């Protein structure tokens, strides 16, 4: 192809990308940069309608002394670790039992993925009713068999467990279908060969299934660690961060600072802190994945 034509080609391909890039520029790139700038200034809408002067890292320093923020950070990390681990484990168990092409298994899979396609705020609402201290399904059932009511969302440590359970209910299906996709990639010949060799079910699990599932496990971890660390919707409609601050996640806390108190600079700084943390963990995870992938491939070949 002549050189000039090729350059023309590049131009039109760029043109293709333009509308999408424009939207992202306006609604993502601009806000992100704006918030970075604001995080170094001093602006609270409560005291002034225009941004104040630059204060360096003051807003960031403030976050490290903010007990409520640090508490939210600890809560989010705990939430993220517990929810992710349980979702991966439960998701694997479900996938192990639902993989297959029979009609019954297909129907079961379809039903099991329903929680993950509904709005997290609706998920929260459902569980808010089920866990209601007086009339909720759980407590009425407990009373019926002669046990006392439990205040699932009103007791600080129990509330935390409850919101974690709600997250697990909604997102275990994600781990399940990704594992299912991973399992269906394993060639049948491998199973046949293993069986000819007289391998036990446990041995097949350990030597074929688990190594094959390592790459998809990293994908699940990546998405679930990031999304559960940044949880807000389901908490917003169940506990609203309470009782006290026991279920206040970093996102919910930042949301309050931003949309309720209009501490623009401080909220920006906090949101950048959690961005750095999130992206750091995500890229670290991808780095580990690459290493693990290479070592598995080395073993296989």
């Amino acid at each position, binding site marked *: 192809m002549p050189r000039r034509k090729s350059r023309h080609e590049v131009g039109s391909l760029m043109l293709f990308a333009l509308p999408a890039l424009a*939207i992202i520029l306006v609604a993502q790139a601009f806000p992100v940069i704006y918030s970075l700038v604001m995080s170094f200034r001093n602006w609270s809408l409560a005291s002034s309608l225009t941004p104040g002067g630059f204060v360096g890292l003051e807003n960031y320093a403030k976050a490290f002394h903010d007990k409520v923020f640090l508490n939210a950070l600890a809560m989010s990390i705990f939430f993220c670790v517990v929810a992710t681990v349980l979702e991966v484990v439960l998701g694997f168990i479900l996938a192990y039992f639902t993989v297959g092409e029979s009609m019954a298994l297909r129907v079961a899979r379809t039903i099991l993925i329903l929680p993950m396609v509904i709005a997290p705020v609706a998920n929260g609402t459902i569980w808010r009713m089920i866990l209601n201290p007086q009339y909720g399904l759980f407590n009425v059932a407990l009373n019926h068999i002669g046990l006392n009511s439990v205040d699932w969302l009103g007791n600080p440590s129990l509330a935390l467990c409850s919101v974690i359970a709600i997250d697990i209910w909604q997102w275990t299906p994600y781990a399940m279908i990704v594992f299912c996709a991973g399992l269906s990639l394993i060639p049948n010949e491998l199973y046949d060969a293993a069986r000819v060799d007289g391998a036990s079910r446990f041995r097949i699990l350990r030597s074929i299934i688990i190594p094959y599932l390592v790459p998809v496990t990293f994908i699940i971890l990546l998405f679930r660690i990031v999304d559960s660390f940044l949880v807000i919707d389901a908490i917003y409609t169940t506990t609203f961060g309470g009782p006290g601050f026991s279920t206040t996640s970093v996102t919910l806390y930042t949301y309050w600072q931003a949309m309720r108190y209009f501490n623009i600079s401080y909220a920006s700084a906090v949101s950048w802190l959690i961005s750095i943390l999130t992206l750091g963990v995500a890229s670290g995870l991808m780095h580990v994945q690459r290493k693990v992938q290479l070592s598995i491939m080395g073993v296989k070949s």
Partner: protein
Amino acid sequence: MRREHSVLYVASRAVVLTLALLAVIVPFLYLFSNSIKVEAEFRATPPRLIPSIVTFEHYRNIFSGNGHIGAYLLNSVIVAVIVVVLSVGTGALASFGLAKLRKRYRSMAFVVYLILLVRFYPKVVMLIPYFILMRNMHLLDTVFAVVIAHSSICIPFVVWLMIGFYEEVPIELEESAMLDGCNAWMRFTQVIFPVVLPGVATAAIMTAILSWNEFLISSSVVAIHAKTLPVLLSSYISDKGVNWGSMSATSVFIILPMFIFVLFTQRYLIRGLTLGAVKG
């Protein structure tokens, strides 16, 4: 996977699947039954999953008086439809260009990387600046503000998905079109786009779900007029009285369309939901 199953496997599968299915079905059933239950039966012991009297008063309630759900339902539908058209349209176009450009130019590969990054950073970062931007443009509390925000989240998803689909298209297909003298636009519309229609369907389904369910950003730029259903539902948390009837009926309106969606689009849906896990 084809293999003979041991008794132990079949038995444990029956137990695990029964428990899992119950755990999924009972909450939904409970929600639905609450939406058609009379007030008094909310606190019946033993709890009733099947109401003894069926009433539609809660649905009548949410469709009447102050805070009529109809307007918000319409908002949600309008937003979802525009977001699907806008983000799948621009996203499919952009990823066609980027899929090729990123191989030729490192800078373009970096642009793709930045677009995908949108999926991973916390969306709270953009809340205030986007709010201020919309305020300065006098677009607060408009469907437009919600649509642009949703699209900016959906486009990265579409790009990620569609690049995978474009890369599966055999290169010969495009080369022969090039020899026939087709320019980029003609190749896209007449040769490539028809081939990647399954990808477009997947992208449309996923963006519809994302937009329909989105809460965080919508809630920060709407006040009264442009509320979507999730924002409306979240406002029930501040109600002091337990208004379970309206709460459940509204939730059913948010959930049911997604169930129907899943039923009819399953084949495409799975690929969208497992994006990134399996090549593509």
